[in-house]
């Protein structure tokens, strides 16, 4: 059966409307479960549709007069977004139970997911800008969603202002690129940049665009919002933003730079943009990991580490070198890193959500000895954190390894070396949390903990997928490979 190429996007958009409609017609008492179920179902369905589209082997489909182009990378990332949205929705079932306006919450999650999947299909700078806004606005709102929580509103505000500035920078960059080329479409841009006469304008525009993407991916220099937004936001929203939204920023960056700004043409112009990404990758991963090292607040530690991971994923753009095979390898590594990260990081934040629900507090000391009262959640947390650190207990090992390997193969030894040192540094703080949970003794033992079904299911699924990706990573790697190929050799 051949599905329309935009099925996942349709599913998400319609589900968002459906959530709002359902809200109007159901009694308050049972609404939350229904809405969460609908959202999760939409996420899974869109991911399934994306997988179906990929398995169907359809090549590149251009839609709406070239505004959108659906290829293997679209389906790959749509699957990531769908899965993360489903996990977040399932976990939110318990988390937002006491909050008002659940329908708006779920609808915003779905709309943001739809926006992300449009980002993954964007084929012109205008569409890219719109999709970015489509993701950003619900994100601001979701961060500020918590009722009577001063931190939530404050975080939303700060996120918003920095976001508004970044999007101004992005628009500025788009206009500069347009000034130099006179076109917005990626394919037309690729033709127009070759031998372009307005090198200065083009160069400034390109770096401004990098700035816009850096905001979305929480990379240096537009990473400042991340720790506070993630900390102030409801934990499932932090999971959503730091996994899915970040991946969306990356897929857009990859699309723009691989499809619209071919490296060869830019090197001929004297604008080696890979260098910018290499510098940003180093600074981003180092800054994130160094700042995370002494955090005493778990959520904040995860937030900083999420900045570090953006640095790793940037290697995919920094280590492009020209030959198709090595470019496909490194881009594919970055893609699969974002895939695994989608599950692992979401799971880690959801464990925090679980802890928040139990009221254990926010700091490492509060988590001490959690393994006694909640062994399953603690085991899950240990697996997820070690996988984030790149130890071979989860799929994160393969993807980090593939990234560093890609960097080495492109001759960027130093980048791989910095990455390895950073991995060691990240183990430094991840191990502190694992130590707190498993080794440190609690003040009191034997607290009976409730088991919120939704969050438990979500974290266990996240951990199982993470481990499964260590044992059998081939499925994801080959999909990521196809996705990378679709962009590199387009």
């Amino acid at each position, binding site marked *: 059966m051949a599905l329309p190429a935009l099925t996942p996007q349709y599913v998400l958009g319609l589900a968002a409307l459906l959530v709002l409609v359902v809200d109007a017609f159901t009694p308050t008492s049972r609404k939350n479960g229904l809405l969460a179920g609908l959202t999760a179902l939409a996420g899974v369905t869109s991911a399934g549709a994306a997988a179906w589209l990929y398995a169907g082997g359809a090549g590149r489909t251009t839609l709406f007069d070239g505004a959108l182009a659906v290829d293997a990378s679209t389906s790959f990332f749509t699957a990531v977004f769908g899965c993360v949205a489903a996990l977040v929705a399932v976990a939110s079932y318990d988390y937002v139970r006491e909050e008002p306006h659940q329908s708006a919450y779920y609808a*915003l999650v779905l709309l943001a997911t739809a926006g992300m999947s449009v980002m993954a299909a964007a084929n012109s700078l205008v569409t890219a800008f*719109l999709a970015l806004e*489509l993701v950003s606005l619900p994100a601001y709102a979701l961060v500020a969603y918590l009722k009577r929580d001063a931190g939530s509103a404050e975080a939303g505000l700060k996120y918003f202002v*920095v976001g508004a500035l970044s999007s101004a920078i992005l628009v500025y960059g788009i206009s500069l690129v347009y000034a130099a080329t*006179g076109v917005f479409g990626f394919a037309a841009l690729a033709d127009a940049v070759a031998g372009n006469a307005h090198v200065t304008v083009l160069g400034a525009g390109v770096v401004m665009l990098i700035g816009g993407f850096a905001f979305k991916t929480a990379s240096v220099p537009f990473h400042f919002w991340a720790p506070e937004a993630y900390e102030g936001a409801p934990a499932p929203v932090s999971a959503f933003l730091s996994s899915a939204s970040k991946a969306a920023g990356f897929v857009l960056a990859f699309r723009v730079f691989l499809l619209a700004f071919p490296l060869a043409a830019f090197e001929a112009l004297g604008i080696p943009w890979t260098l910018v990404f290499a510098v940003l990758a180093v600074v981003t991963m180092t*800054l994130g990991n160094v700042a995370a090292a*002494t955090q005493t607040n778990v959520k904040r530690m995860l937030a900083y580490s999420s900045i570090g991971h953006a640095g790793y994923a940037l290697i995919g753009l920094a280590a492009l070198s020209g030959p198709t095979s090595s470019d496909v390898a490194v881009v594919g590594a970055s893609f699969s890193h974002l895939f695994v990260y989608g599950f692992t990081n979401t799971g880690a934040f959801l464990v925090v959500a679980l802890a928040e629900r139990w009221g254990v507090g926010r700091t490492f000391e509060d988590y001490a000895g959690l393994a006694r009262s909640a062994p399953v959640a603690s085991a899950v947390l240990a697996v997820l954190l070690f996988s984030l650190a790149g130890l071979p207990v989860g799929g994160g090992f393969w993807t980090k*390894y593939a990234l560093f390997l890609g960097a080495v193969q492109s001759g960027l030894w130093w980048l791989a070396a910095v990455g390895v040192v950073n991995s060691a540094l990240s183990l430094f703080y991840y191990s*502190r949390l694992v*130590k707190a949970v498993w080794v440190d003794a609690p003040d009191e033992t034997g607290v009976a903990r409730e088991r919120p079904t939704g969050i438990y299911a979500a974290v266990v699924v996240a951990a199982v997928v993470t481990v499964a990706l260590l044992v059998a990573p081939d499925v994801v790697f080959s999909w990521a490979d196809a996705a990378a190929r679709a962009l590199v050799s387009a």
Partner: protein
Amino acid sequence: MATFILGLPYDSNVQPTPDLWVLLALVGLPFAAAAATPLVARALGNRTAYYAAAVAAVCFGLVVTLAGTHGGAAVSWVGPLSVSLGFYVDGLATLVGALASGVGVLVFLYSAGYMRGEPGQPKYYATMLAFMGSMLGVVYAGDLVVLFCFWELTSVASFLLVGHYSDRRDSRYAARKAMLVTVGGGLFMLVGFVLLASTVGTYSLAAMLAEPAATRAAVERAGLLLPILSLVGIGAATKSAQVPFHVWLPDAMAAPTPVSAFLHSATMVKAGVFLLGRVRPILVGDHWTEIFVALGLCTMLVAAILAVCASELKELLAYSTVSHLGLIVAGFGFTGALGSETAVFHILNHAAFKAALFLVAGIVAHEAGTRAFDDLGGLRHDLPITAAVAVVAALGMGGVPPFNGFYSKELLFEASYEFAHHAGGLAWLAPVVAVVGSVFTLAYSLRFLAVFFGERPDTLGHVHRAPWSMTGPPVALAAIAGVIGLGGITAALGAPLAPVESFVGWVVGATLGPEAAGHAASFHYYLPTYVSPAVVMSALAIAGGIVCYLRWRTVRWATRGLLGALPVLRADGWYDGFVYGANHASTRVQRALWTGHLRTYAAWTFVGAVALAGFGYLATGIAVPTAGPTLGAGLTIILAVAAVAAVAAVRAPSHVAGVMALSVVGFAVTVFFVLASAPDVALTQVVVETVTFVVFLVILDKLPSYYGRIERSRAARDAVISVLVGGLVTVTTLVATDASPDAIATYFVENTVEQAGGHNIVNVILVDFRGLDTLGEISVVAMAAVTVLTLIVMRERGETP
């Protein structure tokens, strides 16, 4: 091993290749058993130990069935990375694999007594089993990546085991220290592996070991021999606790004693020397010898001195383990068969006597309630069997003939003498250091034994006999050590212990470089009956050791003084310094960058944008065009109005005044759009501007009239940033307006009427050509509406703030 007991030769070329399924079962079984442990423990309680021992016994059986085979077996794992789940079986793997599973059986049995009634048993046994599986994975790995995976898993398992007594601060500190050092070293090793694989073109160890000479040639051609050697060496040195990475091992003694016996003497720390043996055929050469002989002998001496300073049983054994690992590393360091024989034979001997001694220490601590030397003595009456075990094992450790450690130490002396004889010069340090180290080794071995002899301190209360489950395993280990020792006597009498000799010979064969191959099966050891340099060195070491022991107080005073003068020997500083430095740097970065002030973030965002654009200009080489004003008077005036109004907004004395100034900016921009031939944009702008103005006034009505004073210093800094941004924009505008778009969207001009039937091109674009973008725009507005509603009514319905 069944075959080796029958005395079959191992060096024949007809050994069958191993069966992949057996290997998968061998490595997978402990993990599966670990996963099932929580359930099993619920049923068995304190007897879970026997379940774990049974699993280890099955593994040992599988190791034995694999003992006659040789070669690799692999199944594809990660296609795109060309990593395969590859295994490799040879003598070295069989030796260390047999240690991991065999000592495992004994340690599990011992745990049945030692851990009886302790809390946290399921976690303990599950982790121990997982550790055993990881160790077997390391040993049988036939692929570099697989080796690395299991290597790091052993560190993770060790982390949980060292931290077992979670209520103790030292054990929490030690757990993290052990993991950070070993995992960090593992990462260096991984980089070395990647270099190795990228020069050779494969990750398969089996393939590399099949062609060691060609592999080495490829590495040398690429000029990467030294980097690879150093990186892999760091991995091995951290795992095997070589100076200066030895700092984690003594602290790791905070673990339960069976863990120390298993991980920190017999198996995990052997992973490092195993790695050296594994890559030795490929990398052995001059650099190899320089690095590892120096590293090993230095470690041997320093750790022996530290062991003399130890004040309790386990600390002494920990430093002694470091010292003996140094001996093994040095052994592998020497080129040729003699070095390999030293290392391989000592791996076997050390595992036997050191595991026994740890278990003895555990019995003493368990039954006497203390491990401090000052509180212990004369225990031979209370613990006779344990004392006998201690005698056999400690004399083996001290290298006294005819106990087992003597023979491998003799081999070391021989190898170091030949090395020095061959190389001359500084190389003569090697035998000297080996002898001096051995002097201290014997001294502390005797000190250990003294716990069982001499006067019994009055403070020592009643000491129980240990249960059989605890004495049995050390007796078995001591028996093995004793038999190996006796083999030397019988060999001198003309009847060598053939199974041990041929087995060790087989293992040695697996670690030889291409130039020494063929030496394999001829391993012999015996009590020397003639005078040779090595015998003289042994005699010196033993005499020195006895003298040192007799002058124990002086020696200890001297060594402690040395340590006081040279604290660098303990080397704890670098780890603590690193941890402190990381914490410090992190706190500072954090304080500087994340102040919690929105303006800090905004300022950095602006600075970042300026820096990015500045970089763009620098990279492309900017030339600011010079040109006069070409805009018409109308545009010039309206732009001036906008600029003045913006400045007014900055200086506005109240919110309302600011809004007024702002709306002047907005309407000036509208007029600009009209003059700039953008009527549609202007229309939209008018509507938006009006509504914004109204919304603003509504909101301002609800907000207080706060209007903070501007501090001078802050204003100056902000002004600098603002001017930077403004300047950048000015330059950009100059450059950009100088460039003319190459292709004004002629497509739309040509097709608007034909395809869409409209004359207003902008409108047609919005509703027709780029209808999708407009849909997105509508979605954004709709979403903003939903959000605004949600946020506004959030507090207003139901409760009041």
